């Protein structure tokens, strides 16, 4: 087993997630002292590490021949922004995933959704299109409203074909778009056939069998 089977009571802030009681007894796999629920705990070294403190900018005292921060000319540069290439002091430097960013670059990348670590949510346009396409086949919608749902599905598929997909499962996302498009096209084909039959009857009158 990978985790350490040790008394977690030694780790002060660890509490039972259900009742909030501190795990005061020696628990790795045992009952909570508060609610008596069975708890299995896996503890990692980060539990004991002190809170991380950011770097402080280093002031340049005299006319030293050193690179300075782009935003703070009196501070020594400690890193280069991996996005914009500007020099950053300890205050401006934001390390993330082994890279360094300036606050402006980070805001820009977050707005564009180019940093997966900062993506918080995404709209599932594939699910919306799929639901709309399937809704067109549901009996109350089928005869009355699918002339609205089918074009709406096709519009949404085209509009959001290049929108950011599900971050964790993108291949399925395109597949669902394709299926939605097929369903909507099928519905539109039905609409066109029905319209063609109706106009045919109006223009040419009823068929020979009806005339007999």
């Amino acid at each position, binding site marked *: 087993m990978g985790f350490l089977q040790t008394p977690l009571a030694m780790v002060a802030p660890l509490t039972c997630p259900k009742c909030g009681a501190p795990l005061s007894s020696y628990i790795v796999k045992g009952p909570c002292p508060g609610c008596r629920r069975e708890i299995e705990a896996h503890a990692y070294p*980060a539990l004991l590490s002190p809170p991380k403190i950011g770097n402080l900018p280093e002031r340049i005292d005299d006319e030293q021949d050193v690179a300075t921060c782009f935003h703070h000319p009196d501070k020594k540069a400690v890193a280069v922004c991996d996005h914009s290439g500007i020099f950053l002091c300890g205050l401006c430097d934001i390390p993330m995933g082994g890279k360094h960013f300036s606050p402006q670059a980070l805001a820009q990348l977050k707005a564009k959704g*180019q940093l997966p670590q900062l993506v918080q949510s995404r709209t599932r346009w594939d699910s919306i299109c799929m639901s709309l396409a399937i809704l067109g086949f549901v009996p109350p919608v089928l005869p009355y409203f699918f002339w609205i749902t089918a074009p709406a599905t096709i519009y949404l598929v085209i509009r959001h074909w290049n929108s950011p997909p599900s971050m964790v499962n993108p291949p399925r996302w395109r597949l669902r778009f394709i299926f939605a498009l097929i369903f909507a096209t099928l519905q539109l084909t039905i609409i066109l056939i029905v319209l063609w039959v109706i106009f045919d009857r109006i223009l040419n009158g009823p068929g020979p069998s009806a005339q007999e």
Partner: protein
Amino acid sequence: MANPKDRTYTRLRGRSPFLTRLANAASLWKSEDGLVLATQTAYTESYQHFRFDDLQGILIVKTRRQLWYMLIYGLFGLLGLFLAVVWEYTRMLGWIFFGAAMIAHMLNWLKGETCATYLRTAVKLQEVSCLSRLPVATAAAAEIDGWVQERQGTLRLDQLAAASTALSPSRGQGAAP
């Protein structure tokens, strides 16, 4: 700049309980530097990122949901049996009801005991609703242990003992079970 599309995510086993899934379908994914908890609410998928460097622990708490499910399915089964035996005209419906309840009961039993799983960081204690069955949660925790150990190393007994002494001298007097 790495294209986000180049990042690959591997899904860990486990699904949210049925009723929870209707409102919030959660899934846990492994990325190159951590875990991503994806929760789909209606048509929005929200993500919570947990870096392996920041994970402090995993807590798995046993729950009694499996027993409640057993009770509910058992009651449905009895109702089906009652309908099948008592009235002639509800016999077929009763047996169908009974059969469905028994299948659900068996699946519930096969999935194993229920639990609530939590990921803990310095600032957050997050329930992972997709790890709601004990066998799946234990297996996932074992996998995560390996990935975290690659980043953080192993927590040693002497480290814990030193921390314990520093935090509270009165603690650590009990005996291991």
